[in-house]
């Protein structure tokens, strides 16, 4: 029996996923690492498992069969890559060698062994990491807005990470999560949902044996830097508030990430060093054959970009779903043509 880990991405995030897999492999060479890919490779590029740190691949087609295109069309790239997480979890849990299953977002890098959290799964069915572990001081209005209020909006647990065992309760969770994500994994703050994440506010209410991991070394990110400080100990191990840094969530690589990091890391130079390292790693893991922003399901089959309103219309209209089984198709009697006539 082994520990299985998975991540979910499109090819434009392959560079980040490679950094995750490389760092995970370094600390856990015996883990089985899965790539859940909701995409088709761009022309000229081939995803060759023999040269990757991934062991196995799951595609959306493997999870949704002939309904894949119809189902995928209802989602933008973020929604799609998060919506597959539920069924992928069930798929991996069904593997007879999987003792425990851990999910990581592709923009995470692992820096020390995850053994402690794996051991927790001997006593708990589900392990979740909250965005924040400590309240912001009452006078820090901006931090309250950026961190606490955002958590209330987007979900208190960060679903860049979740770990489960093979208990009945874990299977019950996986089934519920997969069901919700199949129908309702959307970025719809107006109706109180945010992709796969906000659903998990309900996890401690619906399921037993849930461990809310309050260790500052896990899931360190800009949204909790206001309360976490990184230092190295004498042996050179990265420490967060005195605990080993297990993994860092490099959310929003680019100007937005820089802004939030600058705001909350302040003069914690080690955090800037960490980002410098990550940028270099992502750069060296980037394949020039993958066009920037590539997502096969981002366009109709004639290359015309699909805008969000086209997806929303399709997912809201059962009649359109019935009439056009493959909405990516173009030509006569297609959703594309129907849209043109409206």
């Amino acid at each position, binding site marked *: 029996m082994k520990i299985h880990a998975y991540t979910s991405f499109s090819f434009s995030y392959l560079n980040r996923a490679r950094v995750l897999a490389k760092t995970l492999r370094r600390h856990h060479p015996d883990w089985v690492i899965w790539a859940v890919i909701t995409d088709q490779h761009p022309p000229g590029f081939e995803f060759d498992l023999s040269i990757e740190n991934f062991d196995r691949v799951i595609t959306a087609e493997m999870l949704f069969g002939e309904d894949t295109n119809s189902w995928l069309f209802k989602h933008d790239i973020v929604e799609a890559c998060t919506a597959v997480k539920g069924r992928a979890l069930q798929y991996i849990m069904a593997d007879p060698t999987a003792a425990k299953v851990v999910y990581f977002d592709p923009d995470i890098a692992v*820096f020390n062994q995850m053994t402690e959290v794996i051991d927790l799964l001997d006593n708990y069915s589900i392990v979740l990491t909250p965005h924040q572990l400590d309240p912001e001081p009452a006078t820090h209005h901006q931090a309250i807005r950026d961190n606490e209020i955002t958590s209330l909006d987007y979900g208190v647990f960060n679903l860049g990470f979740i770990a489960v065992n093979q208990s009945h309760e874990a299977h019950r969770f996986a089934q519920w999560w997969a069901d919700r994500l199949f129908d309702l994994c959307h970025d719809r703050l107006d109706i109180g949902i945010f992709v796969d994440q906000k659903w998990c506010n309900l996890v401690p209410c619906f399921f037993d044996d849930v461990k809310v991991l309050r260790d500052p070394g896990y899931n360190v990110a800009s949204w909790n830097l206001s309360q976490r400080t990184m230092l*190295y100990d004498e*042996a050179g191990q990265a420490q967060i508030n005195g605990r080993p840094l297990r993994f860092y969530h490099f959310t929003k690589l680019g100007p937005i990430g820089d802004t939030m990091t*600058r*705001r909350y890391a*302040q003069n914690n130079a080690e955090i*800037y*060093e960490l980002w410098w390292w990550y940028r*270099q790693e992502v750069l060296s893991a980037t394949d020039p054959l993958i066009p920037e922003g590539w997502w096969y399901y981002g366009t109709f089959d004639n290359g015309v970009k699909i805008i969000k309103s086209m997806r929303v219309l399709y997912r809201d209209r059962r009649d359109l779903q019935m009439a056009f089984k493959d909405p990516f198709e173009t030509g006569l009697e297609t959703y594309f043509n129907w849209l043109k006539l409206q």
Partner: protein
Amino acid sequence: MNVLLKKISFHKSGKPRRWLLRLIFKKNLTVRPFSRKLAYKKNGMIRPRFRAFTRKIEATSPEVISANQFIREEEAILKTLLPLESIVHTWRSKSDPSKLFTKSELQKEINKALDGTHSGIIVSVSNDNYRRVTGGVQLCIEHEEVQAKTNGFTYLQIHPWHALPRLGHICEEPDTIINLVINGNDLGCSRMSTLISVVHGFDEARIEIVIHHMLGHLPEQITELIQASRRESCLFWLHDFFSICPSYTLQRNKLSYCGAPAVDSNSCELCVFGKERVSHSLRMESFFRSNHIKIISPSEVTAKFWLSKSNLIFESLVVIPHVSLKFLPRASISKIVNPEPIRIAYLGAPVRHKGWTVFADLVAEFAESDYQFIVMSQKSPEIDFVDWTNVTVTANEPNAMSESVSNNQVDLVLHWPTWPETFSFTTFEALAGAAYVITNPGSGNVAAAVQETGRGIILDDEEALFEFFRSNAARKLAEGRREENSTTEVIQNRSRMSFDSLN
């Protein structure tokens, strides 16, 4: 003028005055574009002249900080940091020399220099031309060259044509091109293999290999050179920690002291030098295993640190300080000179790992106080509220800095390195100039020298340093120095470098 400007710009509390804030910032407290252009370089680094101002604003006006996205110094340094191999690529872009000596040509040139020398040749391995580059190691080599002449040796210094920020890699150049400097004169260039075969051909001359630095060299070829010399051993100076890590001052990402942890630590994993350090360590291990290395450490504290961090095999280890000081009673007690104000100096190049930024912060904090700040260096620092004295130390004027310290009646020298310095000429120049030294516990031989001589103070951290100046303690220490200086004089002796070890 600068003090006046400061007075009209800041309240006594240190808070910037309203007019200054309005000049720099918009009503919403975001910085005006022209102010940003004025204060920051294109690469995001704050201009040194504005450092004091921005520090004041950072320290006293959090509302301004939260409204702006100021790039902090650490982030700005990292913005300019390139991956090691990108730096190598840039450095190696220099074309090869047009002329390389053949074996017979090189043999002839060296023989020419050998005329009149009886004792043999010192082949000194280093990373740059000590005649053209200023620095502590370069001064040591220059001094050693003088000693060679005195002792009847020809001094042949070699350094790589392509300067590199790491060891050479066999795959990029299997036979290093070297510059040769003989008895202080540029000789020309050859392949390392050419020199090895020339050295191999010297049947009678005594050849001693002295390694001052291996940056840019192939350790495998230096082993061949040692073997060609037919000496069983070579001398290896611990001028820094290059034998442990390519980041020879042990600065992680050129930003913070790392303490040389294990190669597989997070610290190394996340460092620009980390990947290179893996092969670097293996090659150094092999080099030390293949040769009989006689280590020379310029200080006890360096020897101790090196032994604790390195598993390299060596034949012997001796400590030879470059300079030793004697504090003797003056023949006649001189009058206590109590010039006002207390004089605080920074000596040498304004670089972060020597504590320049800490000195600049100190200036920013105490410019208005009773302290006078002086910088003694080759180039004028771009910073307000300090007096600058132009000082250049050369082999001809080795005491230029200590004399300047003495002439300017410097009380306290702030030397706050971010790494354990192996010797620190600065410290000895300060002490020889009768100043006291302020440093931190991690400064290696700086702290050791302060402790041994009792001339100065070791403060735990920057907070303690600022408190030391805020309180009366700095004044008391300076007054103690003045009193002692009236009764004691300092005599300095320089070592003979490798000749103190060669039989």
